[in-house]
């Protein structure tokens, strides 16, 4: 057992962090968002060069052939930086095609996704049924698809959609006539969302592995959990820094035990959570029977923790933390996205309980164990 990142992984994260800090520090994130553009094209281009879009795709498709844990480390780093880029959709669409597509389908789309030549995203939630893949209703007939999906990240900008279909299936729709996007006035402007209408468009069902949609849900949970952990840690660091800097009654406010203990509690709520997304990412590649449970728990625990940490961060900054110019609300709103998108913590906790077999007729000795 070695529950640590490798040297290569640490270098990857450090380099990526430096790249983002040099290209799009938090001040620049404000400019991008207030400028009304959907993402930072400069940063996205550099991230593509770095390999984030193909990180986990096969080398044959121009990817780096790494593992889910590496992609999750990218998500953590992007989350800590509030990176305003279409990573989530691109990564998930690539994963879905890599896992769910047949050889032709992989050859057709993966190289363009890995190279960033096209922007891809996932269209999963429906108005009435949000995140239960088995209950989605859109259903291609004779290769054509009609219907509406919502909460689609960067839908307006996307060239390609991986669409969730009835019975937990997936299909690919390329942009063209019949696809209409309507931007939602989303809280988290770093990852804008669309309501997307498909009217009689060409749809290509993914024919590879079974359960591709469920596995896509797991992957999304891990990436959101990683984003949340990165964001939450940054929130703690911001709050601590502010407490050292800001003075009241002639001393730094971080001298007051009341605030000290609140900051210690924040760190305690955040810091030990890292292993949850590590383990879930690792399980996706190496312990498939544990992956869904671990991903659900990581999503629930870390996204819950992030939203609380972001709220605490606003409070720890006092009035200034409530202003538009400050960074705190950008974290808060990104935390809201991580919390809600792909299902809220309770949804995933109840799923985890099912997956653990708590209410099945199994003998208790056969219960699921999360220790290694």
């Amino acid at each position: 057992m070695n529950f640590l990142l490798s040297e290569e992984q640490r270098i990857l994260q450090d380099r990526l962090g430096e790249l983002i800090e040099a290209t799009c520090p938090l001040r620049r994130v404000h400019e991008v968002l207030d400028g009304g553009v959907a993402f930072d094209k400069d940063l996205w281009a550099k991230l593509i060069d770095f390999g984030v879009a193909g990180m986990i795709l096969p080398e044959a498709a121009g990817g780096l052939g790494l593992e889910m844990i590496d992609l999750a480390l990218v998500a953590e780093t992007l989350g800590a930086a509030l990176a305003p880029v279409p990573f989530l959709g691109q990564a998930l669409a690539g994963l879905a095609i890599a896992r769910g597509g047949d050889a032709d389908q992989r050859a057709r789309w993966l190289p363009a996704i890995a190279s960033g030549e096209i922007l891809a995203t996932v269209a999963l939630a429906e108005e009435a049924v949000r995140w239960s893949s088995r209950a989605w209703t859109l259903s291609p007939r004779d290769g054509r698809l009609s219907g509406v999906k919502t909460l689609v990240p960067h839908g307006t900008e996307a060239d390609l959609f991986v669409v969730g279909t009835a019975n937990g299936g997936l299909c690919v729709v390329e942009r063209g006539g019949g696809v209409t996007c309507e931007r939602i006035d989303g809280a988290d402007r770093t990852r804008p969302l669309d309501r997307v209408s498909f009217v009689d468009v060409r749809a290509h069902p993914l024919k590879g592995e079974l359960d591709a949609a469920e596995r896509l849900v797991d992957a999304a949970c891990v990436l959101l959990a990683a984003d949340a952990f990165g964001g939450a840690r940054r929130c703690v660091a911001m709050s601590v820094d502010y407490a050292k800097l800001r003075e009241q009654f002639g001393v730094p406010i971080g001298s007051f035990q009341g605030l000290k203990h609140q900051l210690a509690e924040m760190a305690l709520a955040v810091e030990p959570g890292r292993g949850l997304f590590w383990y879930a990412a690792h399980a996706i590649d190496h312990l498939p029977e544990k992956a869904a449970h671990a991903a659900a728990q990581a999503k629930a625990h870390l996204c819950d923790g992030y939203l609380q940490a972001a709220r605490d961060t606003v409070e720890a900054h006092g009035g200034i933390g409530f202003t538009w110019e400050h960074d705190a609300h950008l974290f808060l709103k990104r935390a809201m996205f991580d919390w809600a998108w792909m299902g809220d913590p309770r949804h995933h906790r109840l799923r985890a309980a099912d997956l653990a077999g708590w209410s099945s007729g199994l003998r208790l000795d056969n219960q699921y164990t999360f220790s290694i």
Partner: protein
Amino acid sequence: MDLGFGSRFDDFRSEVAAFVGAHWPPPGGDPKDPVAQRAFRDAAIAAGYYARGVPKRYGGSEQPPDMVRGEIIRQEVRRARAPAEVRDGGITLLIPTLLEWGTEAQKETFIPKTLAGEYRWAQGFSEPGAGSDLAALRTRAELVGDNWVINGQKIWSSYAHRADFMFALVRTEPDAPKHEGISYLIIDLRQPGVTIRPLRQMTRRSEFCEVFFDNARTPADWIVGGRGQGWRVSRSTLKHERGSLGGVTWVESMLRDLVKLARETTHDGRPAILDPCIRAELAAIEGAAMALTYSTYRSASMNAHGQDPGLFSTMAKISSTDLAQRIAKLARDILKDDLLDMSGPHGKWTERFMVSLSMAIAGGTSNIQRNIIAERGLGLPRDITSAP
């Protein structure tokens, strides 16, 4: 113990209802017409329903304090959706302060026009670096001839961009000990030396402002209380807040709204209100809201009987903040993804989810208030954050 209004107030309630019915909706028919609203409020003052604590010679209705009558008036006005009594900083903070500390000239100059809505006010207490710690104020005023010349910066001044005047704490005695060097000045905001910058909030609205003074001026006799008395003058304001049941309205209407949300939202095809976890938390919130409500009744009753309700207002502030946060979180759990849509049918809840955070910040942080409760309420030893 008498927990109803008692039948002796029935006549009064009928009288108020008749008054409201006669004056609202306005003759012109448009309830949003500011002239009609003004006319209603003027009539309510003349009838003795509004501006009850203000002497007639300054435009008030000069009624004896009566919490129950006050509540009946609020209920009847609310029932008819008529214009409520204005509760801005000029009415709730400045006028009581002037009544206690102001010169006759100050009262005559400012109270009638403030009551009439002609003068709108901003508060100027907080500064960058001096929020909870007013002793650290740095905005200074120097007496030059017949004028105070003011330089410095205020922050968190609500709606200063729409106000005519500010009542402010400024440092006039630089050599005095920290709290004794502060005076309470009235400043005309409509002058070249004043720059006002609204601060946009995370909700995209602007409520608070930064106000910069660059050799701004105010007449020498617009000081309220003496030189160096500003700290004491500003604190006297607090006792004017008592005897009101105002907070109760907020809590009950917010809770009612939340129940409505839970009834109208479906999770997996079932109304969220039937989900036992949501239902139990909603009832728990109701329990906490009831506790706050009855505390308010008790505190108001104590005031009415000349008893000291102690730290009630500080406790009520933290309780309200906690309740608002709890309401915001339950709303989030009901909304789920709809939380992400700022302009959707439940966008106001997304905004409230954020605004609930500002309650813990506005008007002194919760940590300062916990210290006050621990020290003044429980008698624990004081620390450095204690005001003198």
